């Protein structure tokens, strides 16, 4: 079965080609059908592949399509690796992707760029699949850059708006900064291991006595790769693009900037787990950056008023948690969280999209309120999503987050503490969002109120499916604590992490500790729920307008700690100034001036020299005689 895995990326690619080339001439319905159908087909094949992988025979391996780049010692073939990790991601991407496609047929119905939108989405799915399917780092890089491109295209989907274009550009360029790190990482891998294919790299790295354990090179590789992950998965310091990326249509935010693309960094590290396992430094860095990002983004999330921005910071924060998981060796947990996060975050975004759709593209929660009665399905699903993300059992978020926090606890108590703090903040701002949006009185214009309506089926059905998944998805990874072998995912992913598992010192916490950890987290979440409910049910506590005075701390946080401004001042402006300097001074006044100066000097000399030609014979002969005298004089000397 897995030999057919090439169909998975191929179908969206074909979808893209057909829609891209003929989209204008096809009806919207047909475009939607092709767009969704191709992903659905891919989903079908993915299921088959997944089943084959998960089945008893445990089929996995590498499928080579063709040689791609070969030069000197460097070889990279276009081949796909099917293993539990990639098959799981296939499923997430095509599954969630399909739902979002379906959702989009409703959400984008009125848009003139309908066909273009689906073409981009299909292209994105193709690249995302390539990213996870590649059997070497270079193919991953292909997908990596490809999704970046699609992200750029989709953020700037409404290209008439200059701000959106700027956001798109920012996303692309920040990603490229990360990509450079990734690229250098790949090159270091090649230089070190003589190959970029996972199989041989990991085998070499893992082989005992090869000396890659806690070796500076390994650390360097890991850190360089992590730079790439920082860019793609929006970690400090390369996270600022993600909130801005909300300029794109909401399904895009759901698919790319929540469920799939941004988790590519996690996939990469999970894929390279052995390398990270070998380098404690790298692990620590990953964990530290992860938890810091999580905490940092969570604080910002508390004070945001744009429904999508809140979700965006929440995404950044959740991604940080996943990195924490990776950093503390909870590879399965991180991947698990990727999956559950894909469910509930996609759900949240889509539900938010539904709200925005109903509100005629109003995104400010200060203009919402009391939407529960107008948008019952949306509310219900959003509610589920909120509970799930807050980590309240038995919803999906609880299990995955718990696994990460448990590992963090074993690893470093302080990380755990911060993790719990983050988790609590998450619960707080999510419920804040929920209450501000759906409870209380409607605060928008009358016209908006007049038009409020529940979204069409094409949008609500995916919401319901995702809600279902958010509820049930967690049961794939029930902690061992409750039943032996309950953690199905752990068993399933084992082959992908077995190299790491062999060298990871795993100390299990006692049952009591585990219960305590769980209880602590759940208690915190529920407390926050209560707090948010209490605070934001009051109409007076609706957040202040932008021009109102607020206390300084709140202002700093509301303005995202002025990080964008800081980057502007430290990077963008100096770059422009250096460029101007290069062009205005170095290029024109110096390099080119020297070249021109040589020419001008010759002309100037010509003007001087010609004066010797006075036209006077007396002078000519005089000059000749003097020349002869000089020659004779030199001869005598």
């Amino acid at each position: 079965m897995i030999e057919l895995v090439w169909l998975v990326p191929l179908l969206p690619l074909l979808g893209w080609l057909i829609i891209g080339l003929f989209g204008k001439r096809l009806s919207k319905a047909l475009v939607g059908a092709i767009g969704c159908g191709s992903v659905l087909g891919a989903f079908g094949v993915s299921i088959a592949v997944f089943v084959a992988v998960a089945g008893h025979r445990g089929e996995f391996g590498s499928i080579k399509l063709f040689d791609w780049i070969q030069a000197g010692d460097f070889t990279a073939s276009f081949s796909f690796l099917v293993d539990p990790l990639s098959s799981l991601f296939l499923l997430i991407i095509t599954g969630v992707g399909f739902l979002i496609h379906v959702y989009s047929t409703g959400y984008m119905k009125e848009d003139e760029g309908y066909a273009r939108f689906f073409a981009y989405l299909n292209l994105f799915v193709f690249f995302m699949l390539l990213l996870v399917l590649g059997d070497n780092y270079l193919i991953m890089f292909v997908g990596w850059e490809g999704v970046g491109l699609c992200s750029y295209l989709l953020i700037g989907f409404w290209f008439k708006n200059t701000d959106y274009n700027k956001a798109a550009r920012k996303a692309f360029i920040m990603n490229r900064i990360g990509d450079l790190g990734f690229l250098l990482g790949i090159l270091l891998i090649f230089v070190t291991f003589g190959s970029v294919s996972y199989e041989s790299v990991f085998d070499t790295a893992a082989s005992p006595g090869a000396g890659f354990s806690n070796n500076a090179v390994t650390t360097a590789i890991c850190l360089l790769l992590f730079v790439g992950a920082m860019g793609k998965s929006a970690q400090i310091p390369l996270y600022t693009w993600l909130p801005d990326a909300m300029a794109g249509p909401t399904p895009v935010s759901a698919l790319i900037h929540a469920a799939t693309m941004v988790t590519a960094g996690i996939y990469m590290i999970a894929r390279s787990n052995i390398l990270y396992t070998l380098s404690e430094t790298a692990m620590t860095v990953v964990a530290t950056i992860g938890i810091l990002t999580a905490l940092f983004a969570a604080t910002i999330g508390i004070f945001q008023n744009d429904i999508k921005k809140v979700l965006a910071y929440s995404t950044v924060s959740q991604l940080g948690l996943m990195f924490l998981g990776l950093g503390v060796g909870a590879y399965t947990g991180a991947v698990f969280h990727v999956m559950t996060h894909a469910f509930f975050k996609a759900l949240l975004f889509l539900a938010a999209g539904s709200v925005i759709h109903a509100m005629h593209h109003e995104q400010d929660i200060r203009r919402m309120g009391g939407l529960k009665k107008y948008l019952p399905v949306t509310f219900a699903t959003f509610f589920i999503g909120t509970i799930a993300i807050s980590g309240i059992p038995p919803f999906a978020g609880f299990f995955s987050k718990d696994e990460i926090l448990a590992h963090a606890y074993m690893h470093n108590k302080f990380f755990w503490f911060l993790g719990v703090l983050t988790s609590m903040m998450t619960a707080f701002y999510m419920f804040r969002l929920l209450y501000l949006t759906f409870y209380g009185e409607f605060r928008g214009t009358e016209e908006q109120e007049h038009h409020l309506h529940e979204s069409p089926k094409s949008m609500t059905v995916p919401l319901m499916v995702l809600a279902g998944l958010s509820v049930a998805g967690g049961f794939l990874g029930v902690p061992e604590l409750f039943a032996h072998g309950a953690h199905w995912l752990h068993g399933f992913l084992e082959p992908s992490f077995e190299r790491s598992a062999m060298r990871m010192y795993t100390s299990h916490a006692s049952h009591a500790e585990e219960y305590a950890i769980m209880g602590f987290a759940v208690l915190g979440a529920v407390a926050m729920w209560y707090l948010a409910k209490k605070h934001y049910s009051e109409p007076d506590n609706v957040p202040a307008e932008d021009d109102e005075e607020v206390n300084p701390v709140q202002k700093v946080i509301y303005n995202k700690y002025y990080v964008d401004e800081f980057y502007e001042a430290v990077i963008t402006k100096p770059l422009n100034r250096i460029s101007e300097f290069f062009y205005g001074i170095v290029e024109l006044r110096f390099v080119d001036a020297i070249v021109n100066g040589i020419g001008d000097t010759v002309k100037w000399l010509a003007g001087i020299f010609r004066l010797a030609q006075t036209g006077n014979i007396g002078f000519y002969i005089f000059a000749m005689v003097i020349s002869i005298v000089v020659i004779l004089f030199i001869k005598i000397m």
Partner: protein
Amino acid sequence: MNTIIFLASLGGFAMLAEIFRLRKLIYPVVLLGLPGAAAVAVMDWNGRALSPIFNNMIVFDHFAVMFSVVMIVTLALWMLLAHRGLNESVTVSDHVSLAVFSLTGGVLMVCYANLTMLFLGIEILSIPVYILAGSNKTSLRSNESAFKYFLMGAFATGFLLFGIAMVYGATASFDLMRIAEAVYTSALTSKMLLGTGIIFILVGMAFKISAVPFHFWTPDVYEGAPTAITAFMSTIVKTAAIAAFFRLFAFCFTGEAGTWSTIIWAVAALTLLYGNITAVYQQSVKRMLAYSSISHAGYMLLALLAMADTSQGSILYYTAAYSAGSIGAFAVLMLVAQAKGNEGFDAFNGLGRSNPILAFVMTCSMLSLAGIPPMAGFFAKYYIFSSALDSGYTGIVIIAVIASLVSVYYYLRVIIAMYFRESREGLTIELSLLHQVLMIIVTALIIALGIFPDLIISRL
């Protein structure tokens, strides 16, 4: 030897024909006679004159034959170039005979084996040119040109003669072989005498090839003389002079190279820099070509300086390429100046559109003079540089390279004027048949010599 007789007779015919009312015949006979002269010269290729004849007066070795052929062909082309002026003039007899006599002098200068012959050759070459430069009698510029040329030429001759006298004092002979032997074996009455004599001869020769600082006459004379005569001066006179220079110094004064090579080095460097740089400023194409002619003397001196095995071949090729390019350039210049009444760069404006053929020939000539492949001028420069580098003269080659870069500027200026600048009056210049023939031959020569340099260099 036969060549000299043939040419002298041709000149004599041109002189006398008028008396017998055969004026109409002068031009065609001489024009057709010149290829005959070239053929006669070629027949001497392996003739009895390979070693000196007439009591060691002249020698018709390969060097002499090839340079003679180059000059004779150049004169034939020159006849085509000047055909209108010659045929319309009542003085056709004078002009043609003087030109042919001058050529005879040139041939003498490439085949002499005795300083007497060198001296006579120089004078026979120069005196007709003094006259021709002033042949536009009513033009003050032409007068001035003739006068300057004559006066300074005579002055330089004084130095040459004094030098010859000193060399005679040192070696007791005018015979090149005997001098060479004496120089080589140091069988001299006085080394000082020889050295100073060589310097004086060098001054006289440097004057003839217009090397800095003995070049002062060149721009003024070239500018003032009728354009056709300028073409004559810058090709045949220069070829003869450099060949004579080379024969004397490379064959005869070799043993004293220590005395003169430094001087030539300095002279060549000055010539290259001064000629090329000053040309940049010029507003008149004719005067620019004069400076360019100065600078080309510098390149030729490089080959003399090198004294490598390839030097002869390189000078020969250089003169051939340079003559072809110059004839082309002067031909176009003459036609354009006649039509526009002005010799400035702006006279060439718009020529690319109004007269593509002339513009093309001019382009080839300019590129050739600038030394851009595949034109002949490129290989010429290449071969010279190669000879010089072969002998270890890296420094001067670098100067020459820089100088030729400068030269590109002013040569291209002409091309830019032709193809880029617009001209208000779209003057069409009618080309006579002979001019067309000239244009074709010159272009073919420039390109063919450039592509097949073996045609010439393998001969020496």
